[in-house]
């Protein structure tokens, strides 16, 4: 059955060629700060003295650690393995010795320690490459998917969903969309990778084309990145199957659902996935990593990270090894502590990022930016004031939600009502909080409500399981008791029976004895004793 919302790739491309784009409701225009970091090439930096590699850097389950402390590992060697399809391995970001396998502060808003492998680089940078699949068009899709999984590739745009799962759609793919929008202010990592490595991105797109067989391919780049757009156009000059389009600068047009709406005019259902309407979206950095894995046999061990903010003397983009502590990157960019009252590093952009708990937190697969603002740049959140019901948040919401209602209900912990207003459709872009004149950290409330709802569901599931186990146990105890009673009853009956039997025996014996005695007496009377007997 064909979904009625399924897009028609030919129609979409024809519209794009006529220069027709759609728009999503809401969105904001924060001041652009990309020029801080996007003017210099991506810097290849010195290896840090130590790497902290968390064993789980994606959405899904973690693998099992397959190295031991003291072991020497080569660059690109897998540190974890698993046969679980929701698991992708992590790799040694460079060659060196495993120093420890311990808990280490995580690149997560909570900073709660996570299992992390500490690696001390030996300075040799010896690669352990996987066999090259240069002639990938002659290789089966499943082999390529396996390679993408083994290379540890997850979506590098932000969510960290395993790429091999996404690349195995069960529905026909109309449009393969390559996302080069990068709408967060400040961040320029995708911008630089598009400018400098457009060819390799093109190679990655070709591999994806072979795997998912889309009808059309669209590359979208925001119009504040003309050089990146030109570089991709040059790389795709010979290829008629790829449409490169420039979309107007607006936050958050890089959001998956928002970009699909801009390009196709169709909305992804709030409880659905882009594939439900025939779209599949990849970040440009993911395409680069796929080409690296398939054509060069390299696992995902590094990514482009934007180091930016007024407290850095040399903002730039760098190739950071996964696991590099952020303190090392701050040194590279010449962090000036005098520009900040307290050391504060934001992982991710100003709209969706979070404050890192300390500077030993490592760069992980989804870390696209470290923002180190000075005192005036990003002032601390002031005390929130009462909501004045101005409605600006509803105008700014790109998902068409009612942020005020969500706020009331989230704050009052009326989660069922918040869910009735589609809290789970919130993409946490921060547009509502950005426009709020009362400085209410709206997204905070939503994130708290979301984690609470998840927690309640988890507890519910657990208590359901406990109830089941309790009842099973009760039933078992009851059955045991009944079995025991039954056994006792049977034993008692048997005993009684034997007693009865024994009783009969005794009677018989007595009767027999009496009979014998009687017979004897009778015999004595019949044959009186003779003298000869005397």
């Amino acid at each position, binding site marked *: 059955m064909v979904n009625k919302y399924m897009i028609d790739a030919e129609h979409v491309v024809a519209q794009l060629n006529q220069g027709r784009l759609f728009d999503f409701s809401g969105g904001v225009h*924060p*001041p652009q*700060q990309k020029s801080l970091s996007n003017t210099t090439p991506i810097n290849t930096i010195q290896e840090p003295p130590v790497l902290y590699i968390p064993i789980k850097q994606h959405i899904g389950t973690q693998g099992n650690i397959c190295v031991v402390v003291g072991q020497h590992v080569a660059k690109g060697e897998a540190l974890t393995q698993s046969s679980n399809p929701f698991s992708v391995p992590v790799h040694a970001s460079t060659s060196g010795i495993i120093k420890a396998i311990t808990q280490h502060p*995580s690149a*997560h*808003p*909570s*900073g*709660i320690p*996570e299992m992390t492998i500490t690696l001390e680089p030996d300075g040799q940078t010896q690669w352990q490459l996987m066999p090259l699949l240069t002639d990938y068009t002659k290789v089966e899709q499943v082999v390529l998917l396996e390679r993408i999984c083994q290379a540890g590739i997850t979506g590098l745009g932000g969510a960290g969903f395993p790429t091999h799962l996404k690349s195995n759609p069960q529905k026909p793919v109309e449009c393969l969309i390559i996302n080069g929008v990068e709408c967060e*202010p400040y961040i320029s990592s995708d911008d630089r990778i598009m400018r400098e490595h457009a060819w390799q991105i093109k190679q990655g797109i070709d591999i994806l084309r072979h795997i998912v067989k889309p009808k059309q391919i669209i590359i979208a780049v925001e119009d504040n990145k003309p050089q990146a757009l030109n570089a991709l156009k040059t790389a795709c000059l010979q290829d008629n199957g790829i449409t490169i389009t420039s979309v107007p600068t607006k936050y958050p047009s890089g959001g998956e659902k928002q970009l699909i709406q801009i390009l196709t005019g169709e909305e992804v259902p709030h409880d659905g996935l882009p594939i439900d309407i025939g779209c599949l979206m990849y970040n440009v950095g993911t395409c680069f990593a796929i080409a690296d894995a398939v054509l060069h046999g390299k696992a995902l061990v590094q990514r482009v990270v934007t180091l930016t903010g007024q407290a850095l003397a040399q903002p730039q983009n760098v190739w950071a090894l996964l696991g590099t502590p952020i303190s090392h990157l701050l040194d590279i960019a010449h962090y000036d502590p005098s520009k900040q009252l307290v050391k504060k590093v*934001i992982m991710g952009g*100003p*709209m*969706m*990022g*979070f*404050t890192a*708990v300390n500077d030993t937190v490592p760069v992980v697969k989804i870390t696209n930016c470290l*923002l180190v*603002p000075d005192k*005036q*740049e*990003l*002032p601390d*959140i002031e005390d929130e004031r009462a909501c004045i019901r101005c409605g600006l948040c509803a105008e700014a919401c790109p998902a068409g939600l009612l942020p005020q209602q969500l706020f009331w209900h989230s704050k009052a912990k009326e989660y069922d009502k918040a869910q009735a207003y589609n809290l789970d459709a919130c993409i946490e872009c*921060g547009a509502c*909080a*950005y426009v709020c004149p009362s*400085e209410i*950290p709206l*997204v*905070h*409330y939503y*994130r*708290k409500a979301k*984690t*609470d709802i998840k*927690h309640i569901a*988890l*507890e519910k599931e*657990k*208590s*359901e*399981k*406990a*109830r089941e*186990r*309790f*009842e*099973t*146990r*009760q039933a078992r105890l009851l059955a045991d008791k009944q079995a025991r009673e039954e056994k006792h009853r049977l034993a008692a009956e048997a005993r009684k029976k034997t007693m009865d039997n024994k009783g009969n025996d005794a009677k018989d014996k007595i009767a027999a004895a009496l009979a014998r005695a009687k017979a004897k007496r009778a015999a004595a009377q019949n044959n009186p004793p003779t003298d000869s007997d005397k």
Partner: protein
Amino acid sequence: MTLLTALLIIGTLALIFGAILGYSAIKFKVEADPLVEQIDALLPQTQCGQCGYPGCKPYAQAIANGDEINKCPPGGDATIKKLADLMGVEPKPLDGDHGVEDVKKVAYIREAECIGCTKCIQACPVDAIIGASKQMHTVIIDECTGCDLCVAPCPVDCIDMVPVKPTPQTWQWELGKGVGDIPIKQVL
């Protein structure tokens, strides 16, 4: 005659309607969710017995029969509020006689000290302890409800109740503590 006709008509109508009503009472019988099941679904299923009943289901039964709703410390105020909503009564603070609301804990057996007496296994209401006579016992953490019932029977006191540590997956966002703040505001 008129009287007789009227009586007959009314009587026939009464019979017909009675038959229809009787039939629909059987045919369209509404299976109401029994109250005990509904109450049981709200209770935390810790099976700890702190309420004075041997498990959550018996307490649910007692509430349905009119017992107080504030005797469940593991459920705490949240559960009391839900029970109050369901029963249509005013929520009350937790009854201190039955214990206080605590952080979630699980049992942990110091295995080196375990003598293998199986007493804790018999006490566990959800079969979350594995082991055999004269063999070391251990707790299946994922199944443990933290009910505390295994601690008292242990003759060598080798069972600890350990608070569950949050992981990034189970962590609950605190507001206004400065942890994980989202920056958002820009003045430049």
